[in-house]
């Protein structure tokens, strides 16, 4: 059996029993939603509808409605794409990588982080799809036999690798999430009393019984899927970075991009997990499960990955300068960027991604719920600027000075981006209302080894 150090702080606070955990998680599902939930989902769905309207307008008119020009032909669309994919890295990292490392604290955060991952990757997929212009031909990205003779996809292209990486990542994350949800849906099926809820959770729990063989298979599947998903987490953002790294644009053509992008993705993903979870623990009374210690652990991951990102910035800056190539003078990490027309974007990145997150080195700040939340939002903004800088700043000084230009987003650019945020929050709020937001079966399994009232005892009370 798993033994834990007695001095390690407990992961489940208070005198709770197995039944209490079920009741705590089922409470928001069984009770009426608070007024704040209705207000939030109303706001989120209005923004979502506006975004869907922008997308419909874009598809009917074409991508000329964006602010793209001949020099800057990738801008907010790909910025948003990479931003969302990056955010979508935390969930599977928490559930797969931390499962392999046997990190028990993941159990309180993995379910909602995975939900966030799935919604974020869905939002990411919107951007390359609509950027194709003719979205009805989107199936061309798959190697399908077609009516145009031997018109196959190009397996040498990083853009095609992206199609494979993201569709695999999305579908495997979805399956992994759902397989973990089945036993918890079954718990709700047997717990709820309303008729429609009983029927709903009865259907989605697929007739789970929870017998010994089922649990044995469940654990095997969780472990093997974690093993498969772990390299997937690292491959997806590596491949996304190769969209840039295999191109010949100064600033993009950089060998450190894959590890640097993966660290950046985990950095931003954990920030988004904090943004959502710190609000959720308060509003849904999960204080006993998502404790100060959980927040500190997540902040430590943010500090480590943020440190890697900072080192990557310095390396890029130094190597660009040291090469003495004049094209490198205008990349996103250069003196040209820091002092040129896009100085504000450069300094926003430095401030939001290096200087402010550095405050987490203070124990007081990284164990404070309020400051952790504020810093997580700053990191979300900073990581959006990172992608904006990489894409727009590297493009805006073209090889010929006659092509030099600036990027100005149109209202469709802004509306589409806001729209995806609206859709994301709509999905997330629905998840928080109708799904078990904690991994019940996992939390119960650590109650007697990491729960506050059992900590330090070798055997449960009743056996003495």
């Amino acid at each position, binding site marked *: *059996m798993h033994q834990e150090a007695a001095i390690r702080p407990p992961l489940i606070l208070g005198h709770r*029993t*197995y*039944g209490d955990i*079920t009741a705590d998680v089922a409470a928001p599902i069984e009770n009426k939603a608070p007024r704040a939930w209705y207000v939030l989902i109303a706001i989120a769905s209005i923004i979502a509808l506006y975004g869907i309207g922008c997308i419909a307008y874009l598809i009917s008119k074409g991508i000329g409605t964006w602010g793209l020009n001949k020099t800057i032909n990738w801008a907010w669309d790909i910025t948003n794409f990479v931003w969302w994919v990056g955010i979508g890295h935390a969930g599977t990292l928490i559930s797969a990588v931390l499962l392999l490392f046997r990190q028990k604290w993941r159990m309180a955060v993995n379910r909602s982080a995975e939900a966030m991952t799935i919604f974020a990757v869905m939002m990411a997929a919107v951007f390359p799809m609509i950027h194709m212009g003719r979205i009805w031909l989107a199936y061309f990205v798959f*190697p399908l036999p077609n009516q145009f003779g*031997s*018109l*196959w996809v*190009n*397996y*040498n292209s990083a853009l*095609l*690798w992206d199609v*494979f990486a993201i*569709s*695999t990542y999305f*579908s*495997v994350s979805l*399956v*992994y999430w759902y397989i973990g949800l*089945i*036993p918890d849906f*079954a*718990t709700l*099926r*047997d717990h709820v009393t309303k008729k429609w809820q009983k029927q709903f959770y*009865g*259907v*989605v*729990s697929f*007739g*789970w*019984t*929870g*017998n*010994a*063989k*089922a*649990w*044995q*298979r*469940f654990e095997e*599947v969780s472990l*093997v*899927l974690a093993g*498969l*998903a772990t*390299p*997937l987490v690292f*491959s997806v953002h590596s491949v996304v970075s*190769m969209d840039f790294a295999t191109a010949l644009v100064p600033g993009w053509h950089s060998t450190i991009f894959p590890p640097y992008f993966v660290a950046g993705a985990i950095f931003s993903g954990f920030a988004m997990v904090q943004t959502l979870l710190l609000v959720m623990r308060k509003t849904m009374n999960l204080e006993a499960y998502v404790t100060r210690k959980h927040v500190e652990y997540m902040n430590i991951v943010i500090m480590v990955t943020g440190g890697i990102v900072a080192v990557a910035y310095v390396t890029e800056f130094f190597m660009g300068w040291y090469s003495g190539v004049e094209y490198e003078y205008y990349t996103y990490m250069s003196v040209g960027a820091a002092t040129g027309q896009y100085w504000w974007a450069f300094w926003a990145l430095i401030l939001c991604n290096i200087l402010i997150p550095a405050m987490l080195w203070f124990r007081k700040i990284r164990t404070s719920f309020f400051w952790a939340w504020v810093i997580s939002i700053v990191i979300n903004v900073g990581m959006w600027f990172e992608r904006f800088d990489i894409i727009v700043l590297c493009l805006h000084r073209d090889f010929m000075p006659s092509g030099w230009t600036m990027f100005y987003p149109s209202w469709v650019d802004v509306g589409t981006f806001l729209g995806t945020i609206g859709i994301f929050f709509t999905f997330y709020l629905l998840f928080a209302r109708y799904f078990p937001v904690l991994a019940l*079966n*996992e939390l*119960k*399994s650590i109650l*007697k080894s990491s729960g506050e009232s059992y900590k330090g005892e070798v055997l*449960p009370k*009743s*056996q003495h």
Partner: protein
Amino acid sequence: MVNKVIYAVYEDPELLKSAARKLITAGVKVRDVFSPFPVHGIDPIIGLKRTRLGIVSFMFGVFGLSLAVLGTYYMSIYDWPMNIGGKPNQFYYQNVPGFVPVLFEFTVLCAAHGMAITYLIRNKTLPGMPGRNPDPRSTNDKFIIELRMEDNQQHASEAITNMLRETPVFEINERQC
């Protein structure tokens, strides 16, 4: 009498394990165990073999890799080779570094989904299936041992019930099936 089922309900996985051990030592056959989370170490006690789902996953992975090799070879080398940035593509091995991401992703795709589908089918957990756990509390906070008299014809049902009473049991339910 032969069709009788006994459910012994426990409040803790450790108590259930010690009871199961006692029953097995006394020669009673345990049909199944229902619990709200995996009870570690119960499999050898009640004589469950290790699952072979890991092997299934490996086989699906090999299948996926083979399919991906075949597909990339057919499309990019055999059917319509193209000059992509001067990358050599006369033979498969020359072009294979460019295919590695696709080969990897497709292998993982097949291994993960193949295993997940096999898991759902083997567990008989599919959309529309009714819940078949004997007691709704077994997904909440109770741990249940299922004993069937047809497996234990050499024991009298009273003897088994008495044996269960000696363990720290929470309640004992009997049912005809």
